[in-house]
């Protein structure tokens, strides 16, 4: 039976979440949905910003777009995994790239999992947390 999380401002209270996307509206949707659950959301508009913020903020997890100017999601994951201080942060790809094979490729290069845009606002938080629950630290933090 799939686990369902009750959406409430307490659900992600105290969580530091980094969202990286070059589309302001996409950022807005994800940020809004996460903040509704009490998360402390930081945003970056490309991979470069995302990488710097990840080192500075050490978020509990990162949601990143793949296609971005300056530094793409693919480059970002490479740098994050290459850096001792950031390598253990789970990163979920959230992308409008729905081509077959992208998911596989994303998992291979180090993304923890992969969500396809457009996200479903009603189920987004549950979809997201179900992908993260297999990480012991996160499962523990979710109780």
């Amino acid at each position, binding site marked *: *039976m*799939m686990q369902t999380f009750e959406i409430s401002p307490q659900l992600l209270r105290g969580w530091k979440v980094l969202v990286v996307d070059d*589309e302001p*509206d*996409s950022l*807005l*949707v*994800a940020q*809004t*949905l996460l903040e*509704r659950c009490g998360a402390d959301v930081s945003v970056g508009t490309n991979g470069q910003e995302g990488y710097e913020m990840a080192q500075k903020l050490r978020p509990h997890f990162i949601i990143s777009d793949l*296609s971005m100017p300056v530094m793409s999601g693919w480059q970002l994951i490479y740098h994050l995994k290459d850096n001792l201080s950031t390598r253990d942060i789970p990163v979920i790809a959230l*992308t*409008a*790239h*729905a*081509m*077959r*094979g992208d*998911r*596989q490729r994303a998992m291979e290069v180090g993304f923890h999992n992969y969500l*396809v*845009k*457009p*996200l*479903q*606002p*009603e*189920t*987004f938080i549950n979809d997201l947390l179900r992908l993260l629950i297999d990480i012991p630290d996160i499962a523990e933090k979710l109780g």
Partner: protein
Amino acid sequence: MATSPQEIKLSIETAERIVRLNSVIAQSARENEILAALCSYAEEYGAASAVLSYLEIDSRGSITDIKDVASWKNKSQPDTEAAAEHLPISSFWTSTPTQLVFIQDAATDTRLDDETRKALTQANHNAAIILPLYSVGQWQGVIFIYWTEKHLLSAEEEYVFSAVFQPIAAAVANRRAYMSLEHAQYKSEIIAQMNAALGQATSEQEILDAVAVLVERYDAELSTLNYVHYGLEEAPEIIEMVAVQNKGTPIPLSAMGGGTRFPKNAFTLNEIILSSDTPFFMEDVFADPRSEPGSTRPAMKATNVAAFVALPLRSGDRWQGTFTFSWPTPQVFPSELKEILTAITPTAAAVVANRRLLNQAKRQHQISEDRLRTVVNNAPIGLLGLDKTGTFFFSEGKGLRDFGIDPQDLLGTSIYNASETSPELVQQYERALAGESFEALVEVAGRIYQGWYSPVINDHGEIEGAISVSFDITDRRRVELERERLIRQLREASRFKDEFLATMSHELRTPLNAMIGLLGIVLMNNRVEDQDKMFIQRARANSERLLTLINNILDISRMEAGRLEITPSTITLRNVVEKLQQDMGILAEQKRLQLTTEVDDALPEAILIDEDALNKILTNLVANAIKFTEKGSVSLQLLRKDESLIIKVRDTGIGIPIHMQDIIFESFRQADASATRMHGGSGLGLAIVQNLCIAMQGSIRVDSTPGEGSTFTVTLPLHIVDVLEQG
């Protein structure tokens, strides 16, 4: 009228003369020398001419024939008459074989018979001495010495002639005995020479010449045409002249006015001759009963032939041809000639047969060589052969000429001349000379050649050289390059399309993401008026519809481009169904339909399957069922049947008429065009599902009763994941 030596007074000179004459006679080998020696005295006594003749005798000793073998004329006497001839055979002189006969005055001599007298006076012989040559008990010959005037014989003359005629008879007897011995030897020598000459002949003309030389030796009058003619393989009834000569001079066949071919049965005798195994001698065409007047004689007359010899040449049982020698006048052929010709005929036949075989072989060889040359010369290839030093010994082919090389110019030149200009080519030949057989592309002066290279290996397994066959494939190569370019272009176009699809997918989803997300958030915030809420819900629903449409179009584009890839991964069926129940439950609820899902317990927990494809199949089928059902229920069942996963989606909707049940799987088709307007959707869903099923080695079918509902059944191969492996 004999005079005894004692009765005359013999001078010393005369005695010496007789001794000398006897000595000359003893030493002389030939009849004309004997006669000349005798007549050196007769000349002094005023004789005009003389003749020495042989006498032929039969077994009883009777004279049967007389033949002149030597003659003499007194050059100091202006006698223009022909050479002296023998007198008729007459008892007048044959009855006294041991005595000289003197005729002092032919006109008045009463002993003479009329025939003898007539012969003497007609030849203007008015006096004569007849010397009988009788020895070893038989006639050998006779000498006649003639005077033009009456001649009174002196005692000395009588003595001299009486003293020498018997030694002469002995000499002639010896000579004849020797001659008959020599004759046999002579003949065999001639035959041997002939055979040798025939054996050495290298052409029909030489074969003919060898035989003609012999025939000419026996008859200086040899004339008109001599020819060998052959029956032709392709037309055995045809005779063809292959060599002609006239009195030792070869005559070109082209000069034969009547042509060189004529039918075997041109005249009757010809067929008889050609079927004969032995030489055929015709001494007088117009008198011989064998040449019949109706056919042969006119034919012979037309070609001015009065006598001929034909040697039919047979080898085994095959007629090879004939030698024909002809004369314009009737002839008496010497027996010697007949014997020799008969003797050499088998050899001549064998030589001619061998010659014909050789000609035939040469002709066939020539034909096959000509054919080969024709093929090689016209083949659009370059055929080259070089020895182990790299020198070309063979160079042929239209390909070379097309390249601008006269193949003959290459002969004797070295491949190493091309070291600078075509090092690649030199390399290929070096490989072949090293024993390698291979195929290679070589570029020479802007043209591309495909060549097969191979060593030439002799019977001892040694490499003697190398050969190559090359084709100019420049044009083909250009076509290939063009094709490769087109393929590259198509691939690029296809890649652009893929990129375009990916970009479109990305670009269409990005604004939809914002629309669906933000509209959803507004609804979740629950702060809008009921009517506005309904508008926002409709906006949201349309956004979803747009998303589905985009997804379907992208899917079908990929499928139609053959770019549908199935990438199985391990999934848990129950999770998939639960998620579906969740997503689709909302839609069902909106239409107040009951959505039930069931997963067969016989199905394993985890299976290996393409998750996206499975999701699309389930989502499309369930969404369709909900879409076309107004009341009742929709059920999803996942069942196991042997090694198959069965997916059943059942509804209580409008159903599909039987005649439409096939076309609903085609792109952009719905059972009823009006359904598109009523129910929305692109009509792509089922096409996508069917494509996915086929790609996964599965199938889909529909059972439906209009007005009662439809059941879609998908059968997919079941790949169970080993639990251990899964762990």
